[in-house]
């Protein structure tokens, strides 16, 4: 029976490799019962999105200076 620690580990591993059928089942079952881990499942995916966004545009603040009128 997967607990949160094991489930979160599986969710992280799922970003790295395919989970086995048994792992998928165990994870799904846990998620049905655990709202905290459901939140985690969304958030761990969001982390990947943030990282990709960050690495493709490393300084979101960098463009502000160029838009001002009258800048020499």
């Amino acid at each position, binding site marked *: 029976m997967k*607990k*949160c*620690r*094991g489930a*979160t*580990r599986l969710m*992280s*591993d799922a*970003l*790295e*490799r395919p989970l086995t059928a048994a792992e998928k089942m165990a994870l799904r079952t846990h998620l049905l019962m655990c709202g*905290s*881990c459901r*939140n*985690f499942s*969304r*958030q*761990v995916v*969001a*982390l*990947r*999105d*943030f*990282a*990709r*966004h*960050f*690495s*493709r*545009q*490393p*300084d*979101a*603040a*960098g*463009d*502000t*200076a*160029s*838009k001002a*009128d*009258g*800048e*020499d």
Partner: protein
Amino acid sequence: MSGQGGALNVTDNDLLDEQFLGQLRRQMVQFARMQLQDESLAEDAVQEALIGALQNAGSFARRAAVKTWVFAILKNKIVDIIRQRARMAEGVSLPGEDDDPGERLFDQSGHWNKEDRPNRWAEPDTAVKSEHFWRVFEVCLDGLPVKQARLFMMREFLELESDEICNSLEVSTSNLHVMLFRARLRLRECLDKRWFQEGER
């Protein structure tokens, strides 16, 4: 030459002034140094990337686009260096702490500790539009143990595959996955505490 006329008035002078280039170069060196753990290799990679990228930078109307472009080239150079190391079996072993945030976040039976339970994040899609969010993100990255940070960045920023990372560094697949898990636990917790649970910004 004046910059007036709006975003479509593209001149090299506006976009690529010394201050902008200086800042860009600093960020690039920091990024490359973190990935390569070698000052002179990092400097070389940055130099080559800048020379290559700036040849085409006149096509861009926004500095942010120039940055994205330059960093894309830099990342490719870094990836090439890392792959080359792997081929030449110059595996670099990673020192650094492995400490496990799971010890702190979960109780004896493997459940989340009450105070650490993930709550919903309000509008994560809009967070990315905030400059402040990205500063917080950087702070959280800096808070990761070096080994975990480096592996996380190789995987998530450089988008290297697991086996490429394992081949170029002396880390097993299972150790890599453990490190990534720990990095994610920490990063999620940090963003949660410092951004998402702080209320609207």
